[in-house]
């Protein structure tokens, strides 16, 4: 990588300088696509309390990506294949992830560790650049080709169109599944469709943040937005905005410093999440104080 001289603190010059490198342009394009898709899918994921499924899917994606590198295909295809297949399996085994039995968590833990071990085996078999492990696990924005950006874009457009069609009934089924079922909403089919969308989104996010840090773009922006506002459309728009800001800032910081993009993206997203929790607490505290001052609440 060509070493940058450091920011001039003039945003326009800095952007011009960053974007004079094609890989940075591609990184921003890919990051933008992924941030929008992840925030939209993440919104429903947080609503449905399925963040655990997202975590498991991302770990399943790791051997897929490593295996794709091993057989000489772009890692992105491996992510898509394994994440979508994993989503289909989880959809067929509806009990996994609800944690009623201690045995189930033992099975999940074993499956996760084994998936990571398989990925490690593929990387070791590849005998290539050992840093590729770190890139797969913790994300990298270098070397994203225009073809990959196109694939990311097509998948994102397809996934977002499906989400736009099923969005309303999905929100209904997520908030109150029993009433939705009584109203003839196909709850089960919606849940399977959503898991497949989640698989696609997880595969996309993994390519930017790496397997281990998908929460940064998939969960944290949506959770932050839902802590600040309860209106669904506003929360969705806010989540997308937070995702975009976190990604853009993270990429810029990673460009100007020697530290990896995964660190900045998680730290920024986590800072936002902490901030939203603080806002919620002070707001709740104030309303209770106001109410008790006016004598409504003792």
């Amino acid at each position, binding site marked *: 990588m060509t070493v940058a001289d450091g920011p001039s603190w003039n945003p326009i010059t800095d952007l011009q300088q960053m974007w004079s490198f094609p890989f940075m342009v591609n990184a921003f394009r890919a990051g933008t696509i992924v941030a929008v898709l992840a925030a939209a899918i993440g919104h429903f994921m947080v609503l449905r*309390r399925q963040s655990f499924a997202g975590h498991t899917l991302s770990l399943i994606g790791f051997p897929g990506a490593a295996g794709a590198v091993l057989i000489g295909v772009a890692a992105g295809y491996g992510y898509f294949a394994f994440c979508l297949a994993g989503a289909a399996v989880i959809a067929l085994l509806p009990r996994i992830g609800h944690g009623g039995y201690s045995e189930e968590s*033992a099975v999940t833990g074993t499956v996760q560790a084994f998936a990571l*071990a398989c990925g490690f085996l593929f990387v070791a078999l590849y005998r290539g650049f050992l840093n590729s492990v770190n890139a797969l696990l913790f994300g990298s924005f270098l070397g994203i080709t225009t073809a990959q950006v196109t694939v990311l874009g097509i998948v994102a457009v397809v996934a977002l169109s499906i989400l736009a069609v099923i969005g309303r009934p999905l929100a209904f089924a997520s908030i109150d599944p029993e009433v939705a079922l009584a109203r003839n909403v196909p709850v089960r089919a919606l849940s399977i469709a959503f898991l497949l969308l989640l698989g696609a989104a997880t595969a996309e996010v993994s390519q930017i943040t790496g397997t281990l840090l998908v929460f940064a773009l998939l969960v944290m922006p949506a959770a932050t937005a839902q802590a600040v506002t309860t209106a669904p459309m506003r929360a969705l728009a806010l989540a997308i905005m937070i995702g975009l800001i976190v990604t853009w800032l993270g990429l810029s910081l990673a460009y100007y410093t020697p530290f990896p993009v995964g660190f900045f993206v998680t730290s920024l997203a986590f800072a936002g999440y902490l901030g939203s929790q603080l806002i919620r607490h002070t707001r709740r505290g104030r309303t209770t104080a106001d109410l008790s001052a006016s004598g409504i609440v003792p």
Partner: protein
Amino acid sequence: MTWPPFLLYALLAGTAIAAAVGLVGYFVVLRAQVFTGDALSHVAFTGALAALALGIDQRIGLFAATIGVGVVLGVLGDRGRADDVVIGSVFAWILGLGVFFLSLYTSRRSATNGTASVDVLFGSLFGLSLSRAVTSALIAALIVTGMIAIARPLLFASIDGAVAAARGIPVRLLGYGFLALVGAAAAEASQAVGALLLLGLLAAPAGTAQRLTTRPYPALFLSAGLAVATVWAGLLFSYLLPVLSPSFAILAVAAGGYLLTLLITRHRPPVEAR
């Protein structure tokens, strides 16, 4: 047949670590605290790399981080469990911090030790020196002694906490002590199979043992025995087929054994969480 020293060291450390992790893992699964193991695997990575970045022995960072966080989780756990969004966000951030320490470390040491993070994440049982193997085995022996010492009251407290408390067993203190031992075992396991894979070694033998018998003491020692057998088989496979790293071979044996047991005993009802 002459045994190369690295295999002997790996067997020495691996056996002791597996026995400790098997004993601890049984209680982790019984008390439905697999999630704690997951948390510790994230913390182990960041602790070890923080120690490397600060230039101290990575084992000090490893043990300090896992034991400390184990006890903190125990204290927090009393006040109800946080939901999975909070937990996941904190874990992701901890890992992000670990990556930060990693880049600090590699940029300062001019990448002479570029495999450090891979070793921390996925273990390097065949890379142990004699002194490290002996230290690991001694610490593991201490964990085993501790577990056997508290096994009886801990079993009582895990199965029926209220009755145990009424009988004068310090249930809460026992829980903290146990979590400290889980932390120590996690640090040991991450030296053997790595921070990312220790969850498998913790959960798989214990899950298998619970499937095979419902009586607690046989299950406890079966879990330890299975863990040791898993590590031996894994090391043997890895030695005969150098393509397989020891960590992968151990995890493959553990997961395969668990799957086989689940298939054989699939008509039995699962063990309920307590």
